[in-house]
């Protein structure tokens, strides 16, 4: 293989794929990226961790000799980063080595054969639909913070996607860690009807979100089966992310979304966020709870720490139900409030031990449920 490519192009592409490659690998070839130069003048770069695979095409300046090889992803990325801006990078293989040349720099890197590089077998992906890249990005942003990191409940380690017939056909995305839940609803895209319920793993979500950053216009093509999902993004040459899905059953989360909470608090999410943030300054590892005292048109936030004293702040609000107190994990509350881009947020409360529903308003595609803390 011999090809020449703009340093900027190479860097951008490796930047996309290298984070898929785990830093610590017991299988050596998984540290590598597959570089495949075709006679048509393009380079295809593939990275995988066996569960997730990203393939990106980039235009080469020239391909002198087509061929394919694998080389350390992090090494090549680090080299590309340090090469001078604007340089042309030549990649050439000979004798189990790949020579990287740019300007006066020359690197000779060990390689492993392309045939040893594992490729995810997609199989048949019968469901196929498109979602605008911006919508997909918002879906991820609104839900990913609630994904569980607890490995014992592995089926919560991702975003759950499923279709439903509410008042209209919809596609819903949900994530929960057992303490809070985030759900995002959009009109069902054509082609999504009858799709299997799937759980997209956290790492795939994170990588996809990064790729969407640069694909903000246009649509993302989603193909899936019950075990695999593939996202195809436009952009120069295109990027394809394929991931295995989490093999598990997502709990029936709809039962934890409260419908009869009768106490409505309307408040400026920014003021509440900042107030919580301020009083939580004295919260320690053990006491992360912020107590909300609800009174007529006002909320009093308090934190009591055995070590650091007490803090309190009043925030004006729109509230006319009976007075009561409820505690929340300050971090969880801030995570949710940070999602609301509006002057008002609605908190639908029942009592100090019951789930609270939080949303911008009833038309909002995003909905959050937060379980209180005992205080």
């Amino acid at each position: 293989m011999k090809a020449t490519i703009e340093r900027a192009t190479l860097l951008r592409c490796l930047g996309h794929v290298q984070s898929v490659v785990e830093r610590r690998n017991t299988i050596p070839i998984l540290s590598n990226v597959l570089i495949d130069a075709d006679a048509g003048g393009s380079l295809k770069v593939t990275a995988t961790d066996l569960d997730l695979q990203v393939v990106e095409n980039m235009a080469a300046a020239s391909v002198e000799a087509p061929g394919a090889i694998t080389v350390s992803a992090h090494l090549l990325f680090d080299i590309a980063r340090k090469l001078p801006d604007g340089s042309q990078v030549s990649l050439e293989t000979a004798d189990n080595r790949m020579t990287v040349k740019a300007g006066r720099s020359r690197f000779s890197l060990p390689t492993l054969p392309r045939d040893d590089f594992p490729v995810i077998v997609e199989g048949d992906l019968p469901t196929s639909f498109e979602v605008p890249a911006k919508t997909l990005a918002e879906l991820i942003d609104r839900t990913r913070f609630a994904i569980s990191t607890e490995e014992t409940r592995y089926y919560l380690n991702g975003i759950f996607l499923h279709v439903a017939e509410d008042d209209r056909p919809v596609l819903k995305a949900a994530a929960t860690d057992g303490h809070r839940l985030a759900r995002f609803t959009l009109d069902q895209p054509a082609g999504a009807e009858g799709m299997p319920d799937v759980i997209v793993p956290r790492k795939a979500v994170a990588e996809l979100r990064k790729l969407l950053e640069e694909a903000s216009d246009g649509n993302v093509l989603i193909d899936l089966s019950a075990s695999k999902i593939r996202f195809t993004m436009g952009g120069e040459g295109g990027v394809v992310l394929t991931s295995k899905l989490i093999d598990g059953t997502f709990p029936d989360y709809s039962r934890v979304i409260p419908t009869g909470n009768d106490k409505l608090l309307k408040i400026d999410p920014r003021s509440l966020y900042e107030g919580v943030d301020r009083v939580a300054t004295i919260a320690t590892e053990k006491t992360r709870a912020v107590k909300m005292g609800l009174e007529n048109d006002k909320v009093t936030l308090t934190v009591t720490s055995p070590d650091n004293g007490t803090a309190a702040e009043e925030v004006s609000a729109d509230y006319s139900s009976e007075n009561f107190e409820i505690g929340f994990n300050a971090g969880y509350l801030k995570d949710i409030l940070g999602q609301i881009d509006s002057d008002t947020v609605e908190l639908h409360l029942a009592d100090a031990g019951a789930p609270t529903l939080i949303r911008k308003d009833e038309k909002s595609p995003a909905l959050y449920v937060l379980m209180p803390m005992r205080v």
Partner: protein
Amino acid sequence: MVEEDEEDGDAPEAPIGLRKIIHVDMDAFFASVEQRDNPELRGKPVAVGGSGGRGVVAAASYEARKFGVRSAMPGVTARRLCPDLIFVRHRFDAYKEASRQIRAVFRHHTELVEPLSLDEAYLDVTEDKLGIGSATRIAELIRQEIRAKTQLTASAGVSYNKFLAKLASDQNKPDGLCVIRPGEGAQFVQSLPVRRFHGVGPKGAEKMAKLGIETGADLAAKDVAFLRQHFGSFAEYLYRAARGIDLRPVRANRIRKSVGGERTFGEDISSGLLLRETLDNIVDIVWESIERAEAKGRTITLKLKYTDFRIASRAHSLPHNVPGKTEFARVAHGLLEEMLPLPLPIRLMGLTLSNLEREGAEPERGRDEAQLSLL
């Protein structure tokens, strides 16, 4: 030999009533997983680990053990003992998956599970969840369930303390079960060679042989004062062990403080070259235990024992967890270089990783006690 530091850092042992303890140990775990997943390896001598240069055998199949191949043995030595030995690479993901299944089987019977590594655990079944009552019956069920779920075999030892349960699991390996009933412990220990005692390595056994101690009975014949004179702080343990006494509880949430290993040499070492080679060897062995224990830590300590038994150690802490073996080796060598030249030859070298954070452990645990759950 490799020693894993099992200190708990909390309260001293409390007297405990008669307990039912099971020690479960998978048979040639890594090698068996490889043979299970690759039929071509079945019935053949297999070693997991590096064959090249300074690679170390991480696990050997029973076919390989017949030739004298043992874990922690240099690959070249193993190859010499067994020319047909097939070396395969680690697949830690596969081992972790099997380990997860095994632990699920344990938790079916009790929450009091103390894993020692991926393939070994103590269980306290004094009050088992299913109310079976007989520890022997539970051990048999566990072995059957493990076989059904993983197609792997496990050996189990049943007794009334951890020391005896571990000895028992080793008694009828592979695929065996051994029960040491109350009242039989002291007698069981009597006939054992001291080498079988956890913590007694080849050098320790050699030293005991010189003192006329070959078996548990020989050891039991010595008084504490004699043992203290010759074995220092190790004496109490030996005194109890020789009588089959061990009061340590099974700790389900034991926090491991460090993982490390050390080697005592047949001959004293002083040459720089030999020291560096020895260190490489210890790095291999200790890194292996670190991966097996899924430990992540920041502090690396190098310990040397001079010929006059003085101990010198030097430690280095990274701002982050040690990311891989290369970095681990680099820091270890840096520590050694700082200690050179040595004032005296050394008879022992040890390396430890501490400041641990458990992989997959949630540092936020405990803080959520007052956090109510949705699901």
